[in-house]
């Protein structure tokens, strides 16, 4: 009897503290969400404000007089479909290239034994540590000598594979069981077949992560497309937006924020589309 009571009491206490823990988690998540989401909310509300209101102090969260002028100006002054298409071509090609080449090289470095493998991997790691600012101009001189200035190819080619992607894929593929690959080899599958039929499907979560990261950085990339493009027809979205909103001595904040909203939408779409692969990745680790 006493045991039952104490158990009940204990159970009650446990449930209550469990409830408290849930609330603590929710509170922490809500704070994190507010911190992560407020710049986004600010961007969204700012895009409907006049520049004068954006500059006003104290700031307003909701626009006093909501206006669509920023968006109207954005779409009227910018050849939007063209810049959007340019961004899509460059980002699509770079993302696809990274998915294919980084996973191929990652597979080779992780699972195929060949002489110089360690040295090659060390080279990739070394390349990872060279800041982009250092290679920027030599890369442009190279592109210029190849006659690729003012072409989409010039914007795409140098970034088709990157050391970070190779590193990411190599690390993930290293964790895949050798037995599966050996079994396929025993069954007579060639390397290409093993790669396409076994490695790629198993590495989907890593590919999704690489895809998102590459898409994001290429989509937002500003300086390289600006330097390679020599005519406005080749501009990508971020370059075109900067052209119209940032001046020598002043910035058109409303236009910039409206542009940021427009630029961020495709990124959200890609993220949502790839989200299930992330979830899948977590499910798979659970099965192991």
């Amino acid at each position: 009897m006493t045991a039952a009571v104490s158990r009940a009491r204990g159970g009650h206490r446990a449930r209550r503290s469990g409830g408290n823990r849930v609330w603590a988690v929710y509170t922490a998540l809500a704070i994190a969400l507010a911190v992560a989401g407020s710049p986004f909310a600010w961007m969204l509300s700012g895009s409907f404000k006049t520049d004068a209101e954006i500059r006003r102090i104290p700031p307003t969260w909701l626009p006093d007089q909501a206006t669509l002028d920023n968006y109207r100006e954005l779409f009227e002054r910018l050849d939007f479909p063209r810049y959007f298409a340019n961004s899509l071509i460059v980002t699509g090609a770079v993302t696809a290239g990274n998915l294919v080449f980084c996973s191929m090289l990652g597979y080779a470095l992780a699972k195929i034994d060949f002489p110089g493998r360690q040295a090659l991997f060390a080279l990739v790691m070394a390349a990872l540590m060279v800041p982009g600012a250092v290679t920027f101009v030599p890369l442009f001189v190279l592109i210029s000598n190849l006659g690729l200035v003012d072409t989409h190819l010039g914007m795409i080619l140098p970034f088709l594979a990157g050391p970070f992607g190779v590193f990411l894929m190599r690390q993930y593929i290293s964790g895949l069981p050798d037995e599966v690959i050996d079994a396929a080899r025993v069954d007579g599958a060639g390397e290409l077949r093993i790669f396409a039929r076994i490695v790629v499907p198993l590495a989907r979560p890593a590919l999704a992560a690489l895809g998102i990261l590459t898409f994001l950085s290429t989509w937002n990339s500003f300086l390289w497309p600006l330097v390679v493009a020599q005519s406005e027809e080749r501009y990508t979205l971020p370059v075109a937006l900067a052209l119209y909103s940032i001046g020598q001595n002043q910035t058109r904040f409303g236009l910039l924020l409206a542009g940021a909203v427009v630029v961020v939408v495709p990124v959200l779409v890609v993220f949502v589309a790839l989200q299930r692969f992330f979830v899948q990745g977590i499910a798979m680790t659970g099965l192991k």
Partner: protein
Amino acid sequence: MKRLTTVAVALAALTALSGCGREAGGPAPDRPAETGAGPARGTVSVWAMGTEGEKLSVLAEGFEAANPGVEVEVTAIPWDGAHDKIASAIAGRATPDMSMIGTTWMGEFARTGALDPTPPGFDEDAYFPGAWATTVVDGTSYGVPWYVETRLIYYRTDLAEKAGVKPPADWAGLKSFAKGMRDRGGARYGIALPPGGTGSWQTFLPFAWQQGASLTGADGGFTLDTPQTAKALEYYLSYFEEGLSPAALQPGELEQGFIDGEIASFVSGPWHIGVLKEQAEDVLDGRLGVTGMPEEETGASFIGGADLAVFKDAGNRDGAWKFAEYLSRPEVQATWYRTVNDLPAVKDGWSGITDPMLKVFGEQLGETRTPPAVSTWEQVASVIDDELEKAAKGRTTGEAALKSMQRKATAIGTGT
């Protein structure tokens, strides 16, 4: 990261060029070449930044009409990144025929050897002297001024009236002007001087120039720690020490503070007329005034804006210089002012400007200075910005800040 990129791009551009051997045996003096007679022909490719790039085709139409057979191709490039784009284009030898160049970049780009010296036939005296000076590097001019801006003191005329103070004539006058508007005019701050941060050197250096300071010595090295500069820094910092200037200023605070009457005055360029009117035309109507810089040895202000330069690699050098000449004509400069509100760099271009506030800018343009035309200026400028911030926030003394500026500037060098 951004600054790192900028510096790396600039350095790489310099080394890439010296590697090309464009100037074998040291920089030989450039000799300006004549341009051909007759109308311009062919295609002229031009880069221009921001609004200027967007609207330049308006002027190009007139040029094309006057020169049948010529076609101007304008590419608008964003201000943000323009410096790196031009530097990379020079390194990759992928320059257009001509480009708009920010006045403070001239030293850097001219020293790469990529700019064509200004041909004879451009009348130096037609431009404001400070504007022409921005094109001159090592005694040779590498372009022509296109448009200018300079800095004045913006102030609340109602607060000045209430305080019974007049626009200042000298440093003592500026101090009592600011004090008066704070103590009797009801403002919280008499004047908002930039307490460091990007570009604050443009407000600080004029005070040094007003004392007659020269930023480089006879040997060509930096002289940022002269008694004149020390005096200017001491004076500048006194505004923060006496609470006349806010020691921290967030973006937007300046405009809002000025509109609310919290900040009685500040130093800025002509674009602030538009910014303030857009934000609070009703409040400021009849209460907004501008006045020239205080005068000690000189009454100098900063001059900015942009120049037009032609590249040595230009496929159509002749057409490019002819377009530059066309853009320098007084009537075209006046049209440009009406199109994008850029102030004419050519004195005669001002005849049609009647706005009383802009006229004060016009008067100040007669007395302006530019930073030394050295390839490392952007780096030195950021050193001045940083040290100014430390001193204004009281983290270091003016004396130490000045020493540090000189030491770092000397370490950076002038790029020669």
